[in-house]
């Protein structure tokens, strides 16, 4: 259960980004979470609710975008998901595959009703 420290990281990042833009009210927080980020979405939502108490994002919902795992061939760029017997070599050219998506742990944005200057 390391979601609490990650929730705190999200909140700190949002508050810093908002302060830099002079924003004082936030209506939603958006994050991208890789399927293999090692972070559980429900535990993260719970931790966010607890950790956001008394901050600008106290009532803002946390919108979680799950990024599915994807492999790409290092030789031809062909992408596929690692299911069944796939995943070891490229189905198109037999090249080596490497993980290209699925480990994201990123604050992608937040919503506000306020006018924003730049």
């Amino acid at each position, binding site marked *: 259960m390391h979601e609490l420290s990650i929730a705190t990281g999200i909140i700190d*990042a949002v508050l810093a*980004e908002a302060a830099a*833009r002079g924003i004082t009210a936030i209506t939603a927080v958006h994050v991208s979470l890789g399927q293999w980020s*090692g972070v559980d979405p429900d535990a993260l939502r719970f931790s966010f609710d607890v950790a956001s108490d008394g901050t600008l994002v106290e009532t803002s919902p946390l919108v979680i975008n799950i990024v599915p795992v994807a492999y790409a061939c290092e030789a031809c760029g062909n992408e596929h998901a690692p299911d069944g017997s796939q995943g070891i070599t490229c189905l198109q050219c037999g090249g080596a595959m490497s993980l290209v998506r699925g*480990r994201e*742990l990123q*604050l992608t944005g937040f919503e*506000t009703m306020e006018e*924003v200057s730049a």
Partner: protein
Amino acid sequence: LSEPRLIEVRRNILKENDQVARKLRQSFREAGVRVVSLVSSPGSGKTTLLERLLSEFHSEHRVAALVGDLATENDAARLARSGARVKQIITGTVCHLDATMVSRALHDWHWQELDFLFIENVGNLVCPSSFDLGEDLRIVLTSVTEGEDKPLKYPTIFNTADVAVISKLDLAEAAQADLAALRSNILRVRPGMQIFELSAKTGIGMEELHRLLSSPAQAEARAV
């Protein structure tokens, strides 16, 4: 009434840990210290492997180890018998090590004088995968008694490690382990991963791992 507007930012959430880890990795490289970390579930044999590695390396190299656990100094006491310098990091309720804990544990050490630093993470297949510790090489262990589908159940930890060790090879027969299935499951979540089958108890298979750790090119698997 106006619509809410979306302010886009792209910011990695573990940025702070990643920054500390990057700084650590840079200073380790500059000082010529090779740093190897071990992750696995509790009871896969991290401490036994480390015990073996420390006593093997101790005669030729300057080696030390950091070991993370929620409580007790048992592992540090056990490892100190090898003659290497060992420090226990007690995490309390925290289920993983992070870069700051490593940095803090090293601050009163002349770690720059080391050839090898081993870091044993808390036994946990989930949380340690999110935290870079500044190591050059991360080894994930899975023992023959754990079941062949461990890599499929915990793909993230296998994906964030550089090489895999199948441990307790001396028990493979008794456990009726399907080593081919285990290997293929590791490769399914981490294509091309280098796999070592060994028993730290009997010493079978240790040579190959020893060779990997001693080879400078191989040991720097991670980008600064």
